């Protein structure tokens, strides 16, 4: 058998593996990290309540519900929306750091303005951005756009590339949360509010 024929057979096996893996993927629950908790401790943030999170900017309501990876694999947002998953991630970080209080006067709101997964052969990339608003009652303490992204080696095979893409994409939610909670402007706005 020639190398070319063998390659074709292996490619067929790989496609079978991908087909067997199914066409719908899910994401697990958010989990706080030690670095995130330590960062929140160092910021000495006050208790924070979470308000409304939803899609914004170029992210439509349907974009907020699901995305596709390698065209045929659907990644549904856990809990219904990716903006809701971002809220749950921030909630998890604040709770783990002992800074979540639904009755706190300071309320954080967010609009998911970008969510992107590209898992082409060679290099994969994902990006996430949100517009955050920090309020106390009707007064806006801070409005800020925060973004994170990732790149990785993306396999020829969907059975390898698709989980890699999903893992890298979902990891961005925790990174965005930590980046927000450790942002010096957030600290400054809250300190100014405390004075």
């Amino acid at each position, binding site marked *: 058998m020639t190398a070319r024929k063998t390659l074709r057979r*292996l490619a067929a096996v790989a496609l079978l*593996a991908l087909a067997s893996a199914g066409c719908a993927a899910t994401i697990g629950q958010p*989990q706080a990290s*030690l670095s995130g908790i330590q960062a929140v401790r160092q910021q000495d943030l006050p208790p924070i309540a979470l308000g409304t999170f939803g899609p914004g900017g170029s992210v439509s309501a349907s974009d907020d519900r699901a995305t596709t990876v390698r065209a045929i694999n659907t990644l549904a947002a856990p809990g219904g929306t990716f903006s809701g998953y971002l809220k749950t991630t921030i909630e998890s970080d604040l709770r783990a750091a002992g800074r979540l209080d639904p009755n706190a006067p300071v309320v954080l709101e967010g609009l998911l303005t970008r969510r992107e997964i590209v898992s082409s052969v060679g290099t994969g990339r994902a990006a996430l951005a949100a517009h955050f608003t920090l309020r106390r009652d009707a007064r806006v303490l801070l409005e800020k756009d925060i973004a994170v992204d990732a790149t990785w080696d993306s396999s020829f095979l969907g059975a390898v590339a698709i*989980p890699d893409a999903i*893992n890298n994409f979902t990891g961005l939610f925790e990174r965005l949360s930590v980046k927000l909670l450790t942002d010096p402007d957030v600290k400054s706005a809250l300190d100014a509010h405390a004075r």
Partner: protein
Amino acid sequence: MPTYRDGLKLLARACAIGLLSALGACGTFYVDSNLHDLAPSERVGVANPKPVQLLFDFQTKGASNSRARDELVAPVTKAVQDSALFSDVGPAPAAGGALLQVTVNNVPLTDDAFARGFAVGFTFGLVGTTVGDGYVCTVDYVGAPDAAKITKVERDAIYTSLGATASTPEHATKAKSLDEAVHLMLHKCVGNALNDLARDPAFSK
């Protein structure tokens, strides 16, 4: 420039991984035996165990794998409880502010495994129809909000043989299932890393 032979090797490895992902429990599983599961008598004891907030992350090639994390948080919690280093282990903030992060990173085992710290007695890469998965287990501990972080790392491996002609890994223990292999690997890795942590003079301060 990659040759057909290079392409074949990559594709064969990827096929094996893809098939394992797709078929789940097929194959024969072995856990590397260079790192052993600690007996109670080998565990370092502590005089006054404190409660700790446990955080766990499972990664695939350095990226968080949230589905695997949800599946494996229970055995990791048990491994931490079995260490008897802490009076209480849970996800909520602990009295005193102690934090323990356990991170298990699943990495492909390649020919440079030795250089990357895997003390294993097996020829890596695709040998016949046997593939190896490396696991780097890192424990980070912060005893109090103002305490310095202590980090300990252990490494382990799981081998999967497909088909009757597959080679049998040396220095490895056969497991009944993938589930048993993963649970054993976690118990060994986390237990040994925590024992290293308990030996560190800074741990009891």
